[in-house]
């Protein structure tokens, strides 16, 4: 079988990165390097209030005392934090302009990425906040959402327009002291999205942010804050791409979610940053801190992620289940091909009574990729009747890749029921043979099997995203497997 599979594997793993183009835009960028002056200048550029600058400076000073975390199963070359541009904005953008004000070049870029910013062009119910490099370019459907009391805007706009909300919630889930990259982000974050769903409102459309790194040598540091008031519901999507470049670029983001009583937040990510070429050159270093807190009773936070891009992924979307009967979910498909490395997973912290969490993680490794699941399930003393089910499967498509599982389970309550299981295997030759025998060629067969394997997670994505994710999965593995 190997004879047949090898060329197909090659073909599948060597698919081109489609979003690798660079848009020629004039940038308004700060010089390279990081110091207090830069932090102050970022804040000044964004015309931020004093309190926010204070937070930034505190975070920056704290960051200086911290060390790069090295516990992850990742080999990361040392990052020179002084060799990065921390702020870069496409020049022609006007801060609060409407559709007409957006630079046509930018519109073209997002069109090319399949993200039409023109509201007329929208077929389905998606509202988009498009973020290019450091700043938000355009937020669609802002007005019609506003009628329902929903706030969906760029982070900077929110700081200006809703300072009380930002003050109240920013850093309440991921404090700047949380970890090295969170501190860095808190000091230099440039923009991001803010979502506020008022009491009892069910957001009628999918909200979505599209992140694009364009400029060279820049790092992207955005933060997203989602607040769902009592009984609110929102489904939020995030997508990202970057041009192909030979040097590594840094992306360190923070996402915070707050779900009050009976609220539900669904957060989906299709992460497709540039993964580097097939020799492991270039690619994005993706260090993301994502965390949600189920503050109120019966609230629910659900993370779904499809991770196909980035040279290095370091990401643990987590749920703090504080409210009684709150629910946390984590569904993940992570693909590593060529020299990609991923160390990803989740934390489920059960604090409230009758809390439940589900973890489904599917890792796929091909080429020389290294894929790790790292997760924590903690049941604290008072979390009576907590329930967790974790399943982590790894699929190996090649004899040079690696698949690793590092679950941590800490139980401090007798009534808890915690289950974890993990398997690692390659695609069964018998499965491929079965397909062949039914007239399905090996490439299609492998595609079918991989898709079937990831189906449980892909099904959790909103329809349009699921289709895209499925395609992505195929492209990422093109050559290694269908």
């Amino acid at each position, binding site marked *: 079988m190997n004879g047949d599979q090898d060329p197909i594997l090659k073909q599948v793993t060597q698919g081109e990165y489609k979003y690798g183009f660079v848009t020629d835009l004039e940038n308004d960028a700060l010089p390279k390097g990081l110091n207090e002056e830069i932090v102050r200048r970022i804040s000044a550029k964004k015309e931020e209030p004093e309190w926010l600058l204070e937070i930034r400076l505190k975070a920056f000073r704290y960051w200086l005392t911290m060390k790069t975390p090295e*516990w992850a*199963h990742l080999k990361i070359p040392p990052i020179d934090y002084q060799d990065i541009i921390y702020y870069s904005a496409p020049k022609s953008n006007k801060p609060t302009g409407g559709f007409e004000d957006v630079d046509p070049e930018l519109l073209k870029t997002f069109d090319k990425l399949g993200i039409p910013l023109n509201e007329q062009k929208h077929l389905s119910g998606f509202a988009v906040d498009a973020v290019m490099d450091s700043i938000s370019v355009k937020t669609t459907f802002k007005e019609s959402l506003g009628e329902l009391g929903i706030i969906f805007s760029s982070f900077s706009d929110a700081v200006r327009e809703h300072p009380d909300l930002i003050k109240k919630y920013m850093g309440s889930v991921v404090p700047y002291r949380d970890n090295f990259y969170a501190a860095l982000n808190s000091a230099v974050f440039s923009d991001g999205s803010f979502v506020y769903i008022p009491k009892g409102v069910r957001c009628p459309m999918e909200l979505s942010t599209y992140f694009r790194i364009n400029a060279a040598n820049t790092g992207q540091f955005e933060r997203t804050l989602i607040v769902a008031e009592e009984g609110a519901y929102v489904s939020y999507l995030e997508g990202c791409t970057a041009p192909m470049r030979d040097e590594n670029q840094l992306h360190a983001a923070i996402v915070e979610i707050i779900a009050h009583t009976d609220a539900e937040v669904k957060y989906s990510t299709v992460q497709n940053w540039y993964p580097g070429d097939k020799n492991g050159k270039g690619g994005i270093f993706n260090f993301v801190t994502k965390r949600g807190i189920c503050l109120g009773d019966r609230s629910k936070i659900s993370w779904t992620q499809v991770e196909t891009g980035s040279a290095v992924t370091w990401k643990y979307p987590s749920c703090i289940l504080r409210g009684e009967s709150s629910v946390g979910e984590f569904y993940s498909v992570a693909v590593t091909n060529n020299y990609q490395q991923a160390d990803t997973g989740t934390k489920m912290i059960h604090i409230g009574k009758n809390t439940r969490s589900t973890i489904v993680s599917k890792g796929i490794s091909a080429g020389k990729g290294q894929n790790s699941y790292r997760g924590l399930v903690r*049941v604290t*003393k008072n979390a009576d009747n907590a329930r967790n089910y974790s399943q982590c499967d*790894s699929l*190996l*498509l*090649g*004899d*040079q*890749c*690696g*698949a*690793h*599982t*590092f*679950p*941590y*389970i*800490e*139980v*401090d*309550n*007798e*009534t*808890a*029921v*915690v*289950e*974890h*299981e*993990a*398997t*690692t*295997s*390659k695609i069964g030759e018998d499965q491929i043979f079965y397909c062949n025998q039914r007239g399905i060629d090996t490439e299609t067969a492998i595609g079918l099997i991989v898709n079937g394997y990831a189906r449980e997670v892909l099904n959790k994505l909103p329809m349009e995203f699921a289709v895209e994710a499925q395609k992505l999965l195929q492209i990422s593995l093109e050559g290694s497997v269908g």
Partner: protein
Amino acid sequence: MEPVSEKITLDNQLADWYFSNRDLLMSSSSSVFNSVRPAAMESFRKLGIPDASFENYKSTNIPKIFLSPLNRYIEEKKILFSVDDLFHCDIPELDTELVLIVNGWFYENRPRLQVLPGGMIVGSMAEAARQYPDLIKAHYSKYADYEKDGLVALNTAFAQDGTFIYVPRGAGSDRAVQIVNVLLSPEDLFVQHRNLVIVEEGATARVVVCDHSLSARQFLTNSVTEIYLGPNAHLDYVKLQNENDNCNQISTSFVHQERASDAIFNTITLHGGMIRNNVYTCLNGEGASNQTLGLSLVDETQHIDSYTFVDHAAPNCTSNQNFKYILDDKATAAFTGRILVQPNAQKTLAYQTNNNILMTSDARVSTKPQLEIYADDVKCSHGATVGQLDPMAIFYLQSRGISVREARLLLMYAFGHEILGKISVEPLRERLSDLVDKRLRGELSRCNSCPLHCQETC
């Protein structure tokens, strides 16, 4: 005092203890031990006693158990007692070669080193190093890596005596070797014994190790056992830990397996204070198979921490790890298991599971089953569960006229039996099942904390 400076003080104390006794250590031991001592000490000074900053020792506060002032023995102190007393501790109906190790020293109830019919050699490690230096040299400190673990380094730096078992090529009998590690001292004691088991090609060995304490003093044991299995060798190793709750124990075992060898390493923990068991397995030859198992029944403020590392270094090997804990009262437990499949180790089958039952809300468990896989044609899986006894099952038994208490005991017994069932020596299996049963009923007395020393059960 700050934990960090505490650790530094402790590390320095232990190092000082080594340097002030170095001449004595060197003069009383064979050159086999002495040749690695300085390097091991060097390594200990680098690593120190592992504290919570070592990922693998996160769940167990090792420096804490070292802090209590313990008399540290370099010279053997003659402790006299009647061996007959100890036969209570024996497993009846089991015909074994009995080796007694008292406070880490070989006890001369039998020749210091004896060649048994069939060529098997059993006896004192110190004596063996004197009589068979080449044999020991070929294996000693070859599997126990003192550069990675400060506790192994400490043991290697101070190694003097322990048990030695050698089974020559093709030899072996059904008769088990029973090693009874006895802690018996009028004062608190720190014990470090060093053991070596060599099972040559095609040979078979059965080893039963029982850890007991006979004085109600505080003991700390830091033992290292190296086990070598040649091609096609078989080993059945059962370790029973039943010390009083003032005894803290760190036991590190290294199992090195060559082609088509087969080993079962089973640890049953009944009583004891803070216990840390490390089992490192290296499957170094094609077709080797290994089972590393553990059953712990802990209560009060006991703490059990098991660490296993199975290194699949060769293709076509099979490994199975299964650890089960029942935790009562304020007991705490931790499990860390890792399967490493190296790039060339294709066709590996590896399985790892850790199941825990919490009986009270004060019991605590943390478990970390880990897989690290660099080969694609493998089947590896792991699982971990934490839960309670199934109320439906209890109800079912009640509906059949069985009392709640009995029903719970039955279920716990069934839970543990999966591990006990793997013990191949029948009388031993029955005896241990019986002990576990008694332990679950709370009838297994901590005879050593009892001043009467009645010892009816242990």
